[in-house]
Every structure is written in C-alpha cells, then in structure tokens.
C-alpha cells in the first residue's frame, strides 16, 4: 500500500536495493567461503618470504592469519564504497531527480511540509541501507558456516553496524547535494567526488605521512574500515560521523525549504 512519501520512496528503490543486497550478500558469502583456501595459500607465501618481509607488506602476521583480518580487508575496505554508490544514486534522485522529472508538481502541491518529505525520503533510503547491510551479514554468516570458519558473531555484527554511521553521513551529504544543485548529474557528481576523494585521501595517508592530518577531514577516517572486528568500536568517531551528518541534513532541509520549483 503506497500511503506515504516513505513507502513510495522505499518502493521506488526496491530494485536497486534488492540488487545491492543480493550482490553484496553473495559476495560476502564467497569471501568467507573461500577463506580457508586463501588463508592456506597466504600462509605458504609468507613462509617463503620470511616474517620480517611479510610484516612489512601486510602488517601483523597474527592478524592476516585471522578470518576477522581477512574479512576486514576483503569486505569492509570496499563495502562503504558500495553503500556510497547506492546512496548517491538514491539521494540524487530525491530532490534534483524529482525536479528534473517534474514530478514535484504533483508532490509539493499536497498538504505536506517539505521538511517532512525530505525526512521521510531519508528514512526510506536509510532503511534500504540497513537491509543491504543485513543481507551482507547473512552472507557472511552463511559463508562462515559453509566453510566451517570460526567467526565472532558479535564482532561481525558490530562491524556491520559500524558501516551505518558512515552510510548516514553519505546519505545526509547526498541529500544536501541534491537539495542545493538543480541538476541530478551535478548532485551525484559532487557527492561521488567527495566520497572518492575522501576514500583516496584516507587510503594514501597510510603510506604518506604528510597526509595523515588531512585525512581527518575524510569521513572514511572515522569509518575505520573493519575496526570493530579488530580493535572494538570507536564511539567518538561514530559521534563525529553522526554529528556532521546531522549538520548536512539540516542544511539540506533549509535548502529544500527555500528551493523554488520552476517549470
């Protein structure tokens, strides 16, 4: 039953959400399903290299040798990018996309406040991210069971939860871009550029010391990859992502309230 902006937005994203959920679920399943073979091959390579070389290349031997470290590297390094792609597709269509399609003439002439429209859309998109994350978790658990890999389910769940503050930040920033730019392409381009630049900055800062300070301006820095699997939750980082996300959400609401819907 399509009875609200929330349900309509959720309905609209069903195919992309389903695609991402199934795709990431299958990917995660195979990542864990293949872990025993990968770990075996990796161990042979490391034995051949010697401990000091192996450490310099991939960090702690102990961590590389664990399913948690493997999952952290194989999945949680890239999962935020996958989620960001989904979020940018959906958020850019919320305001800029509806204006381009001229469907705002139908929606905004109804007795519903604009701030509420934006919040309902944001909530529906975020629910989509939660479902994708849930599917990814199920894929990981299924893969671990199929390959008989021991995995701490609490840590896995926390790591999955840890992706949500980052997703919230991208959601809010994407909505902000969608609310301030008239063109859907521009909104998507700017949001993508910021996320990719942040990803690159944070990745490069691990090798280039002069970038370490700058990397703190990247949302990826506060995401912390699969940190909870290895080091536990960083609540201060989560707070920063949620706080700055809320600021962007507020700015998006203000921009949308003031936006003129020209024909």
């Amino acid at each position, binding site marked *: 039953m*399509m009875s609200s*902006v929330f349900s309509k937005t959720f309905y609209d994203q069903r195919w992309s959400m389903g695609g991402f959920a199934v795709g990431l679920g299958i990917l995660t399943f195979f990542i864990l399903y293949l872990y025993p073979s990968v770990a075996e091959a990796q161990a042979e390579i490391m034995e051949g290299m010697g401990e000091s070389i192996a450490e310099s290349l991939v960090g702690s031997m102990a961590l590389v040798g664990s399913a948690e470290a493997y999952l952290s590297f194989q999945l949680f390094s890239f999962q935020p990018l996958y989620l960001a792609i989904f979020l940018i597709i959906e958020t850019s269509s919320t305001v800029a996309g509806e204006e381009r399609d001229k469907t705002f*003439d139908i929606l905004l*002439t109804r007795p519903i406040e604009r701030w509420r429209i934006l919040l309902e859309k944001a909530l529906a998109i975020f629910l989509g991210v939660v479902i994708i994350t849930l599917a990814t978790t199920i894929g990981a658990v299924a893969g671990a069971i199929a390959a008989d890999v021991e995995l701490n389910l609490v840590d896995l769940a926390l790591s999955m939860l840890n992706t949500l503050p980052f997703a919230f930040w991208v959601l809010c920033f994407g909505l902000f871009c969608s609310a301030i730019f008239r063109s859907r392409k521009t909104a998507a381009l700017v949001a993508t550029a910021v996320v990719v630049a942040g990803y690159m900055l944070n990745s490069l800062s691990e090798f280039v010391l002069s970038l370490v300070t700058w990397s703190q301006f990247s949302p990826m820095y506060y995401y912390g990859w699969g940190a909870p699997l290895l080091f536990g939750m960083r609540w201060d980082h989560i707070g920063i992502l949620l706080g700055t996300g809320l600021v962007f959400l507020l700015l998006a609401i203000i921009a949308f309230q003031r936006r*003129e*819907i020209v024909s």
Partner: protein
Amino acid sequence: MESVVLTNGLTKHYGKTIALQDLDLEVRRGEIFGFLGPNGAGKTTTIRILLTLIKPDSGTAMIFGSDIKKHGQRIRRLIGYLPGELSLYDNLTPRQLFQYTGSLNNVEDMSYAEELSERLQVSNVDQNIGSLSQGNKQKVGLVQAMLHRPALLILDEPTNALDPLIRAELYEILREACEAGMTILFSSHVLAEAEAICNRVAIIREGRLTRVGTITELKEIAPRRVRLTFDNDAPVEAYRIVPDLSEMQQPEPNVIEIMTRAAPEDLIQVMAAHPPRDVVWEEVSLEEIFLGYYQTRGTYNYDV
C-alpha cells in the same frame, strides 16, 4: 461574492526578466475562471506562486482568506492541481498513483476517483503510467487533481491530448463540480473552450493583467465586425465617419467590412443616408478579442 483567490501587486522577476508585474487578480467562489495568455505571459508563474512552488518578489496572495506565505500547508489541502507540463510517476500504475496522492490528501475513500476514472474512460488502471498514451496520462492527471474534491481546482491546459468526447465529458464534470461549490481556475490557450465553460476570463500579457470580465462584457467592449453589401459601388468615404472605426476593408467593389465599437444607432444613422442592400452583424469570438489584446501590428489593437 466571496473571493477564493485574491492577489495584490504580485510581482516576480527571473533575473532581469519580468515574469509578473503588479498582478491584481480575484477569483470568486463557485466560478470557472479562465486565465488566458500565450506562453511566457505569466500564467504559469501566477499559478506556481499560488501553489507555493515559487515565492513572489513582492505583493500578496490570499487563498480562502489565508496568506499563502504563512499558511501554505493549510491552503494546499484545499487545492487540486493539474500541471500544464504534466509529468506523473511513470513507474506507478494509475491505481497506485490515486492511492498515493489520495493518502497525501488524507482521502481513504477512492469512490470519487473510480467514478472520475470511469467517466473519463481511464483505461488500464493497473498498467504502468509510463506505458500509457498521452491522452490517458492526461486523464490520470485530471483524476489525481480532483479525487480529493478540492475547494479550488487549478487546471493548466486541461484538455491537452483529450479527444472531443472526453473533452465534453470533462466540461460536464467541471460544471457539476462548480454547482457543488468548487471554484476552478482554468488556464488555457484554447479560447473556444474558455468561451464554452468559463464564467469570467482574465487576459494576461507580459506579466500584466490587461482585462478581466465576463465573456459578454469582453464582447461588448470589443469592436463588432459589420459587412455591408450595396447594389452599386460601396460609398467608402461616407462610411469613414462611423464612430470608433478601427478597420475598414473593401473585399469587393460593392462590399465594405468594418470593425467598430460604435453603438448600433450611430451606425444606423450612417446607413440611413447610404442604405446598403444587406447588413451582417457578426459576433466577435473570444479568439478575436484575445488577438485584439495581443496584436501589435495587425488590423486592430485594443487600448489597454
């Protein structure tokens, strides 16, 4: 009579372009009000201001006595709108669209939507809107605008792509709605339909309101076309003294066609001195009145 729409000095610029200048407009309860003008005249800008989609630079607009700047949500509850450049959600079916827009207007009973769909012959209510013909999309647009029985219905070019039978049915629906108390603001290029169903019309030119009145009033102030046929050569010079003569043509040696605002008795006096064999008084159509307000180089151009 109570004003449903009342604007005062409504002005809107897009950069250096004047879209609307000091527009004073009144639409009264229960009337079908025609809003006439070509593209770029300011009709759509006016409508979008009333719908709170854009904000005026200056001036005020009241709908049902409430200021649109302060009570946008309350006002939108009372309005139904069909955009001129209609774009619906292509991925929904008409039935889903009616449910969605109905729920946004707190309408649970879909019986009126069903009745309208039946009367307007909306086919394939369970097929995606994107795959419907333009005419069917227009019908769906009309139903979504009316399904909550708005007190004020704003229709921008409502008969686009409709066949004559459906158009006639739409006129009937609109007349019935008006009798039930609905007020309709009707923007159109098709002057014949404004003439057919509007109680009053306003003509807008370059963002300014140039004339408002009933069709009868507009016709009364417009020049009449008179065709005079004589037995012999027409006495052209004698007829030049007809008051308020705006045009004179001689299509044949014994025929004169004149456009004049003169009262019939003034013309009869001239005819008494130079009697024609035949006289034809033609009623001016709304189209001619409209063109009269717009023509700048043609045969006549009304004072505004």
